[in-house]
């Protein structure tokens, strides 16, 4: 449902939840709906045109990951990519071992899939994180052994922006002579930091379209050439039989267009960092705001706690001012963020987290609005006990 009373001036800081589709993506989706609407599996010209568009989208995405187009498998989004990668790998390798190594701060689509695999007899090790939300490489080395069949570590945490040492996984697997496949949930990292699966040493990598200004309904799983995982869905030849079903062409075309439209990442990173530092300087002036993200977090994601102001009222207050942030995860009625709890934050800080996430379209003016609204919110909202 879309609300009529949405304010004219809006400052959108919930880009880790979803981003505004860019013009290129919208145009590509429209073309796939109005002109190239055939089934890419059909043998006639209409189908071939759609297949060309599918190939083009695959190439555009692979170019961004510096991989080969045939290593890209389209899915419905990040959650499906994560489910497919984890279940598919575990199923494929279960005869060689039953141990899975991951972290305590994964996104629910990884965390809960692993819990489900636990019920099916896998032993899941969830590495603890430090106060900066990062796992230690030493822990990783001691956790991975020859019985380990899967290692899954996220590139960037969705609540805090903490960057994990994903590249250490390959060394740990090699050192333990483990048959493990390595999966990386890169949904929050894709398009926001340099990302090359082959140099990170991962076999499987999940990405999503609507976090990079594509539209909802498309994602992809990178599967390194030569790696085989078991499919979860059956009944067609599409996506090399790994993900049968007619492809969601409008969303996939938009995904390709959005990937192509991604600007130079190093430059974007630098300007995001500049904006983040500007924002933090404003927060410091306001006072009463604690920063939960580490200093070396991805600058696009900043998690803060506003002393004594619980997330929910602050979020609705900001929303009424046309400033949109998130609390990082559902935290109402005593439900606290698992990620922040794992980082060992005090209970006051766990009551009041806000996640501020930028996109490449975020402006200084928007940050001024945010700081202004936050200041008003702190004055307006009664401190909780």
């Amino acid at each position, binding site marked *: 449902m*879309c609300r009529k009373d949405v304010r004219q001036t809006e400052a959108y800081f919930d880009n880790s939840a979803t981003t505004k589709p860019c013009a290129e993506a919208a145009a590509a989706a429209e073309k796939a709906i109005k002109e190239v609407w055939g089934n890419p599996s059909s043998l006639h010209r209409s189908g071939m045109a759609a297949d060309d568009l599918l190939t083009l989208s695959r190439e555009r995405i692979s170019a961004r990951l510096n991989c080969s187009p045939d290593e890209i498998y389209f899915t419905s989004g990040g959650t499906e990519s994560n489910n497919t990668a984890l279940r598919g790998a575990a199923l494929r390798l279960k005869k060689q071992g039953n141990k899975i190594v991951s972290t305590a701060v994964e996104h629910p689509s990884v965390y809960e899939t692993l819990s489900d695999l636990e019920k099916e007899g896998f032993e899941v090790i969830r590495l603890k994180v430090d106060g900066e939300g990062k796992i230690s490489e030493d822990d990783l080395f001691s956790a991975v052994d020859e019985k380990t069949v899967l290692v899954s570590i996220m590139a960037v945490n969705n609540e805090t922006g903490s960057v994990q040492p994903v590249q250490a996984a390959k060394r740990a697997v090699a050192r333990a002579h483990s048959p493990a496949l390595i999966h990386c949930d890169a949904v929050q990292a894709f398009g926001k930091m340099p990302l090359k699966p082959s140099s990170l040493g991962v076999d499987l990598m999940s990405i999503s379209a609507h976090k990079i200004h594509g539209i909802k309904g498309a994602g992809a799983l990178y599967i390194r050439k030569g790696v085989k995982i078991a499919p979860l869905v059956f009944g067609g030849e599409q996506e090399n039989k790994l993900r049968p079903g007619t492809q969601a062409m409008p969303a996939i075309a938009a995904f390709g267009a959005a990937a192509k439209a991604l600007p130079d990442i190093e430059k974007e990173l630098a300007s995001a960092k500049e904006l983040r530092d500007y924002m933090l300087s404003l927060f410091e002036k306001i006072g009463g705001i604690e920063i939960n993200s580490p200093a070396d977090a991805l600058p696009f994601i900043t998690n803060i706690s506003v002393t004594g102001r619980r997330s*929910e009222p602050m979020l609705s207050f900001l929303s009424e001012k046309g400033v949109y942030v998130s609390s990082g995860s559902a935290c*109402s009625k005593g439900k606290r963020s698992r990620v922040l709890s794992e980082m060992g934050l005090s209970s006051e800080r766990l009551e009041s987290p806000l996640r501020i996430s930028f996109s490449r379209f975020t402006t200084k003016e928007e940050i001024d609005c945010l700081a202004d609204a936050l200041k008003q919110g702190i004055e307006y909202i009664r401190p909780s006990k």
Partner: protein
Amino acid sequence: MNEIILVKNGELALKGLNRRNFEDMLIKNMRLRLEGLGTFDFSSQQSTVVVTPHDDVTDMDEAFSRICKVFGIAGLSRAASVEKDMGVILRSTAEYLNDRILSARTFKVNAKRSDKTFPLASPEICAQVGGYILSRYQHLSVDVHNPDLIITVEIRDHAAYIHGNQVKGAGGMPVGSSGRAALLISGGIDSPVAGYMMAKRGLALTAVHFASPPYTSARAEQKVHKLLQKVAAYSGRIVLFTVPFTEIQEQIKDNCPEDLFTLIMRRMMMRISQIIAADQNCGALITGESVGQVASQTMPAIACTQAVCNIPVFRPLIGMDKDEVVAISRKIDTFDISILPYEDCCTVFTPKHPRTKPTVEMVEKAEKVLDIDALVDKAVKGVKMKIIHAYKTDSEDDYE
């Protein structure tokens, strides 16, 4: 062959001279509830109301399921209305009830002949229909004591009605027949159930909700709309009044003892609700309180909130266990909405250790510091009104 719905009145039949009124009310309620599904005729014969659609294409599945939720109905069945001719009756019985006959192993036939000019008497009708069905369906046998399927053939003045097993109606009395009351609704599990229960006893509902932005979100209000929409399937349309409550809560928090916060707040809610009730011709308030459920619902605490009320407060859940309330909320389909995790006005500023044995004097003294009249007046002036229909949503209008 036309399909119709036969509605058996509930307690109505017992109500002597008022019967006519109650029946009119029931018909009006059914008419309103069927809005949007086409035109229907309603005619009452003995203690049955016959609902006949004007159109062949009417969605009778939807119409039937809506009438199942109308109070004042003991039982109802979908029936075929056919010409009063024995050949037609036999063929139509097999055709109309084919699916149900195929799903049953045993059956019996009932016949009712109110048109005494019809040439066959009831036992003869039964014998003919029974014989016809047995000859066409080899798998069936007759069981007059405990049949899977009871086929009823009614010979009325204008037509013959054929139907299978009767379904139990929603019971209760027609909404409106007992007057109107104001339901205090928070968003939890209890208040929608309380509203449903009082509507069942014939009360039309007006709803009062207290919102404390930004402590409560727009989502919490949307949740109340969704809950009332479910209740309205039983009670008919509900006018909702949303009261701005932030200032009152802040004032109580700033000026009154913490352990009495909830009680003073509830007294304010009662005062405001009574004003809205008087304005809307409501003769009582309805709450979802149950003794001992939370600190503000102990007997002494209820005495404190009751003390500011000068109209009856109906508390239909007062002696129920939580699991009994949950069972009803599942039945009326409000449970899954109720458990959505949005903060409501009752959980904002909740004290850590509320007083469980307060006295009226204690509370009166504690709230003296507040300018109660001014606060109540301001809140009442800021009330927003919204009409909630069970089957009409404004999502389409909202969509640009």
